[in-house]
Every structure is written in C-alpha cells, then in structure tokens.
C-alpha cells in the first residue's frame, strides 16, 4: 500500500520534470503518465483489481463511451477541410 503511494508520488515528480520534450510528444508523454497514475488508483486504491467482472465491465463501458464521444466528434473537426466547400 505504502509502496504504491510512493510510486504515485514519484510518477508525479517525473511528470513535472518532463516538460522539456519537443513538439507534440510532450502531450503524449504527459497524458500517458496521467493514465498510468489513474490506472494505479483505480486498480489498487479502488480495489478494482480484486473486484468482480461486473465492475470491470462498468469501467470499460465508461471509457468506451467517452472514446465514442471524442472520436466521432473529431471525425467532424478533422475532416472539415478535406473538401473545399464554397
């Protein structure tokens, strides 16, 4: 338990230190670390690692739905300039 707390703590410091990456990689690194930290909180602090399949299903469904909202909305914004519309 304590071990995990330290892990998360270091994750945090690493994140803050990593602000010297070039270009878009910066965002990727920051978000990946955030995801990792969130995963640890979910699995261990929220006991999901030891929970039944139903809880896993609920979490996966939530992430999936969030992904749908992002992905299809972006399908609009990223393709707007593909066709020159007068």
């Amino acid at each position, binding site marked *: 338990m304590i071990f995990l707390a330290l892990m998360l703590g270091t994750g945090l410091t690493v994140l803050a230190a990593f602000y010297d990456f070039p270009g878009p990689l910066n965002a990727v690194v920051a978000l990946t670390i955030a995801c990792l930290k969130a995963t640890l909180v979910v699995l261990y602090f929220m006991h999901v690692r030891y929970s039944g399949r*139903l809880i896993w299903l609920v979490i996966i*469904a*939530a992430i999936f*739905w969030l992904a*749908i*909202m992002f992905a*299809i*909305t972006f*399908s*609009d*914004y*990223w*393709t*707007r300039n*593909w*066709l020159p*519309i007068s």
Partner: protein
Amino acid sequence: MEEFVIPKQPGSNYLNAEYGLKSWLLTKDHKRIALLYLGAITFFFFIGSLYAMMIRLELLTPQGDLMQSSTYNKTFTQHGIVMVFFFLIPAIPATLGNFLIPMMIGAKDLAFPRINLLSWYIYMAGGIITIYALLAGGVDTGWTFYVPYSTTFSNSYVIATGVGIFINGFSSILTGLNFIVTIHTMRAPGMTWFRMPLFVWSHYATSLIMILGTPVVAITILLVALERLAHIGIFDPAAGGDPVLFQHLFWFYSHPAVYIMVLPAMGVVSELIANFSRKNIFGYKFVAFSSLAIAVLGFLVWGHHLFVASQSVYAGMIFSFLSFTVAIPSAVKVFNWTATLHKASISYDTPMLYGLGFIGLFTIGGLTGMFLATLAVDVHVSDTYFVVAHFHYIMVGGTLLAYLGGLHYWWPKISGRMYPEGWGRFSALVVFVGFNLTFAPQFLLGYMGMPRRYHTYPVELVSWQVLHVLSTAGASILGVGLMIPLIYLVWSMRYGRIAEANPWHLPGLEWQTPSPPPTENFLTTPIVTHEAYEFAPPEHKEVVGKFERQQPAES
C-alpha cells in the same frame, strides 16, 4: 395452467397501508412513488398539450393572426421542452417502470428506495423552476437551445429554463442508476437474465442510456448558462468559439434521449403483444439483445441532426451509415412482434389495440427516419414539417400509445379496479384516428416545403391550408380521445369493477400477487422456475433439438 393460490389476507395493500399526506410524500414504496410520478406527469402532459393546441390553432390560417412570431417562438419552444423533458423521458420508466420492475423480478423494492423518492422531488423541483420560467416570460430558442441565439441574442428566460432542465436531468440519472443496480443485484432466486420479462430488458437498456447520456446534456446546459452570464465566447464565432460544438454536445445526449423515450415503450409493447396473444414472444433473445443494440448504436448517430449545420461531409457520411444500422434492431423487434401474432390467440382488449397501433405507427415513423438519414433527402426536408411528422409518429404514435396501453393493461394491478372496456376501446380508436389525421398531412406539408417553427405560410398555397386544417381537426379529435381515458380512469378508481389478482389470467410474476399489491409486493419470496411468457403447461412442451415448442393444451 395451475393457478397460484393467493392466500386470503385482510385487504391490506400499498394503497391503504398508511393514510395521510405525509405517508405519500415521505414514502419509500416504489409503487407509491410511481403514482406520485403519474400525477405529476399527467399535469405536465396537460400543459404541453395546451401549447400544442395553441400551435395548431395558429396554423389554421396562413397569416400570423393568433399571435406574434415572438410569442409563437415561445409556444413551440415550451411545447417541446415540457413534452420532451417532463413527459416523454420520464413517462414510462418513472411510472410503469418504477411500479413494475421490482415486481417483475420478484424483489420487495428497488435497490435504493430513498433515492427513488429523491428523484421524484428533483423532478418536481426542476418542473417548478421551469414553470416559473414559462410564466415569467417564457423561452423562445426552440427546445434545442441552439447557439449563438440562446447564448447571446435571445431575451428570454434561457438560464432559468436551463436550470430547471439541468435539475430534472438528475432525476433521470438517479432513476436509471436505481434500475441498473436493482436488475443486477435483486432478482429473485431462479430469475435468470433470460427469464426476465422483456419489459425489464428494455428498461435496463434505457437506464444505460440515461446514465451515459444525461450528464453530457447537463454540462452542455451549464456551459450555455455560463456563457450567457459571462459573455465569453466558447460558442461564439466572433470570439473564436464554435456553435457547432454546442450541437455536437447537445445531440450526443438528445439523440439517445429519443431512445430513452421509445425503448420503454417497446418493452411495454412486448408485454402487450405476448400476453394478449397468449403466446411466447417469438425470438425472445433477439428482442432482448436488440434493446441493448439500440442503446449502444443510438449513441453513434447524433450527427444526423447536424447534416445541414456545416458539419464535415465525411462525418456526415459516417453518421448517415450508422443511422441506417440503428434501424436494424428496431426492425428486428417489429418482425418478432409480428411473428408472435402469427397463429396466436389474440384478444382485442384495449391494451392490445394500443399495442397494435404502436407497431403500425412506429414502423411508419421509423421508415420516415430512414428518409431523413439519407443525406441528400435530408437536405431537402431538414427543418420542415416532414421532420416534425416523423418524430411525432414515433413519440405520440409510439411512446404515447404504448404508455396508454401499459396504463390500461396494468391498471387493475395498480388500482385494484378495472377500467370500462367499452370506453377503453372507443377512445383507443378515437386516439388512433385523431393522431393520424393530425400528423399524416404534415409529411406532405414538409415534403412540399413548409418549414417548421414558422407560424405563417403563403396564402396562395391553398393546398397547404387544407392540410393544416385537416391537421388541426385531427388534433382536436386526438385531444378528445385523450380526455376520455383521463375521465374514466379517475372514475374507475372509485366506481370501477373490483379486479381480482390476475384479471387477464397471465403467467407474469406481477400477476401472482394481489391487486393492488401489498407494500412488500410478495407475501413470500417467489422462486422462479419457468421462462417468461410461459403459456403452455410444462407437460405439453415438446423438446425438439434444443428448442422447446409449446403445444396447446389437449382437452
């Protein structure tokens, strides 16, 4: 079929277990909460209908002679808001769902009874705030609150209405949460997922949508309110914002919302069709999975409301294709219901009339949805009366009819009385005729180009006026047809024939308990040993391969 023996008990049921206003307002009994909702929902339906009447009266003549355009804007906006948020979305889940789901799965109550009561209070709070906004001056943005009009230019009570709807959304979320947890954790022994009535399956799917979609519209309304207060520009193009972002966020909920409106109705119809044809639903698993499929696919199609809103054409194509796929599970259900009717022993009682009406009208509404999903056709009919007719076929011809059918079907269980059957059938017919007369002309009007949300139309187009007059005449007939059940249902609560526990002689779990039920639903916890809609006695079932075929009883 062996009748389950109801032990005689001294007439104590949920209605007379306790008396007094406090026992109703502080109740934790899901059945009483369902009745609280029933009263509130009927009230809001009445208000929404008044607005509808004003709309139809104005459109009798081509000129804008009944009201100014600004007043008309408020009228159709408020008609939409009250009907969508305060009637259609909660109607079946909060009344029939609340009442029946615990009974259908053999539970004593929902998982969180106090949260259930809270959701009613939240609904009332949202409703009162919205009514305040309507009385204080109304809102004129359309129920869809499109920006930048709603954030920047409208001088009406957008924020107050928004707050009312925002609060009301939590009612929806809590109901959905309650249903999901109840269905997962409180089924009686032996009640496996595939023995549950389809009514429960469809409410489960509806609850998924409520949970996943409502928060998004909540945040959207919040953003609109903040924008109106602070004038920053998240949706204002002049300030770098994007009005289409609003439409994406709004419709991400509002399209699945229409499935919140129709899935419970489909659940009711499954019950009506199976029970009034005394036959197991054809393809039970297909219908169950179709409910889930509609819930999932319904979240992928919102962009079909943005086809003409400068959304990317490529995104439009994706949404058009996905919109076609969402029709498939709905069609599966319609085919399964029809197959259930084949060679069945159909009794044309009032609930069945409503159920049959649903199938026909929902099919028409759904097919016209296919026209709208076609990009090129949509360019022509978007924002015309074609769209208006399409969604009214589904919402009125579909949801309202199913709601009435369910109300009649379960009325003996809810009130312990039978409604007068003759009047029931008569008003069902009046509703059906009135409804079609109201909305069928609107398809033609829309196709010919009559825009929606306009209160005037060209005097020269006589055919348009003819159609509008027909539509208003139909609306009057529909109104009469809806008043009649209101009268006789209230009448029956005191003077109706007293109903026995199982007046329709059906195998469902909710019919195996007295009418009206005791507060804890069942006198003893049921143990479920057979499938849903089991009409034939087990000794008459023949196992062929892995399918069981029910033979009629030999006598």
